[in-house]
């Protein structure tokens, strides 16, 4: 593994590697699926037909990402139903960022810009993941994510060139999403117990703090281009480090959200649970129909 080769489904792999991988891919799949909700919240109210089409297509892409990723876990012997049950029973996690509400349409742009941007920082290295199916899924996903990120930024550019109310909407959204976006990189390195093992297995390739710094450095000039203020008085260029200094994350909020006490945790899980349970009879019908059909095709011709 250290030789940068790829592991494929039929290859031998350490059990700890397999487990960690399943957990990581499942969390990523769950994040795509739960992440549809905050954006889905605005599909019916999108303020132009073009934006409606873009948003609908984006949410559709996320469902597609969920599909690839659950397929990748299936190559590791764990199926979608099992993982969905774990999700709705809160036995597996998803990205905590989606436990924040989308309160205005500017949030859609900011999610594209900051949240997808942070996701890309996290995910690009995964395209070189040691596990083949995951790496290949990530190549496709990252491509689509960066398309989404550009769309988000373009929406924000349009709003910033618009009315005062629209500009205020963007600033408000940035104020609410900035810190949660920084939290997307996870706990500080000193508090991240799994990082070393994951890096050794090349499931993970950079530490949380490294990625967070890269994101901040990338985002600051973009914020300037947009004309928005990032809500951190400590944010400043450090000439010595050749990087931006920034303020302390509210780790108490981070912990609360991770532990289920974020603004939308209960809502997101209840929504996903309802969709899953309300769809049970449909999935049952499809199975029953397929079984009947299989039986019939096995019958000898009369």
């Amino acid at each position, binding site marked *: 593994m250290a030789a940068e080769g790829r592991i494929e489904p039929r290859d031998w792999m350490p059990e700890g590697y397999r487990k960690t991988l399943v957990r990581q891919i499942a969390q990523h799949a769950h994040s795509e699926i739960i992440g549809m909700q905050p954006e889905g919240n605005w599909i*019916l109210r999108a303020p132009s*037909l073009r934006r409606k089409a873009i948003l609908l297509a984006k949410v559709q892409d996320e469902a597609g990402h969920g599909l690839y990723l659950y397929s990748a876990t299936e190559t590791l012997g764990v199926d979608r139903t099992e993982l969905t049950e774990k999700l709705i029973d809160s036995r597996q996690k998803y990205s905590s960022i989606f436990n924040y509400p989308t309160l205005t349409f500017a949030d859609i742009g900011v999610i594209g810009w900051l949240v997808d941007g942070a996701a890309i920082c996290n995910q690009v290295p995964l395209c070189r993941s040691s596990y083949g199916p995951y790496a290949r899924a990530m190549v496709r996903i990252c491509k689509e994510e960066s398309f989404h990120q550009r769309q988000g930024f373009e929406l924000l550019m349009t709003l910033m060139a618009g009315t005062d109310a629209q500009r205020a909407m963007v600033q408000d959204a940035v104020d609410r999403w900035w810190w949660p976006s920084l939290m997307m990189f996870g706990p500080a390195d000193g508090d991240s117990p799994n990082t070393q093992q994951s890096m050794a297995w090349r499931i993970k390739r950079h530490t949380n703090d490294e990625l967070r710094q890269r994101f901040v450095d990338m985002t600051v000039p973009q914020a300037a281009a947009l004309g928005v203020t990032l809500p951190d008085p400590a944010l400043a260029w450090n000439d010595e480090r050749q990087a931006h200094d920034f303020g302390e994350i509210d780790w108490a909020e981070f912990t609360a959200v991770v532990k289920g006490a974020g603004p939308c945790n209960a809502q997101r899980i209840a929504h996903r649970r309802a969709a899953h349970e309300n769809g049970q009879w449909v*999935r049952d*019908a499809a199975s029953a129909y397929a079984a009947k059909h299989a039986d019939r095709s096995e019958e000898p011709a009369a």
Partner: protein
Amino acid sequence: TEDLAAYCLMLADDALVGSQRLSEWATHAPELEEEVALANIALDLLGQARVLLARAGHLGAAERFRVAGRASEATGDGRAHDDEDVLAYFRDDRFFRNVTLAEIDLGDFAQTMAWMLVFSSWRLGLMTRLRGSADPVLAAVATKAVPELAYQREYAAGWVLRLGDGTELSHVRMQAGLDAVWPFVEEIFGAHAVETRLVEAGVAVDPAALRADVDADLEQVLPVATLTRPERPAVGLVGGRGGRDGVHTEALGPVLAVMQSLARAHPEATW
């Protein structure tokens, strides 16, 4: 051209309102594959609506509502609302010309599939014929729409079969879904005066001719799906007027209230 603009609005509104209704499924579908497929279909219909609304706008339909929507002078900097958005967002429900079938609550998944089978079968018949329209723009719109609608019909037919001939529960729900949609079917075959005039000009399709298409599809699907063709009275018109005249069901108002809320909160904004 006034007739043509009205006809474009009719076909556009069927697709726009149907797309909005289908979009309600987003994040609620029974399976991820359905999540993808329903969004796909909603996107196809939205695309059809956009071209047709733009055409209606080109023909002058937007001017009337541009004022009503107070979206005119405010955008003097040249970034005026596109016609499609004026017509979609600043038009009151009484000026929407979709058939009421397009606006009904899609209810559960079975009802949605019943709805989609009828709607796509009908619209596929319409667009197939419209490819030969004397109006080249409509002909082009139709040519692009035909394969999209063929996909929708196949998708819906597949699920009507699976649900009708699946479990006992799904069979009951599928029949109930079909029954619930049925009263709104008759209206889609009635020709509005605008349509009648444009049929004579070789521009439009006579909706009465589409009954055979829909019947054929239903006859092909329902028996195999072990479903019964419903016998329920059609919903009545109000003094002879229906969706094509802007006389809708009570369902349309709230749907548009939500759809238009943000655009109307910022009438001078572009997005």
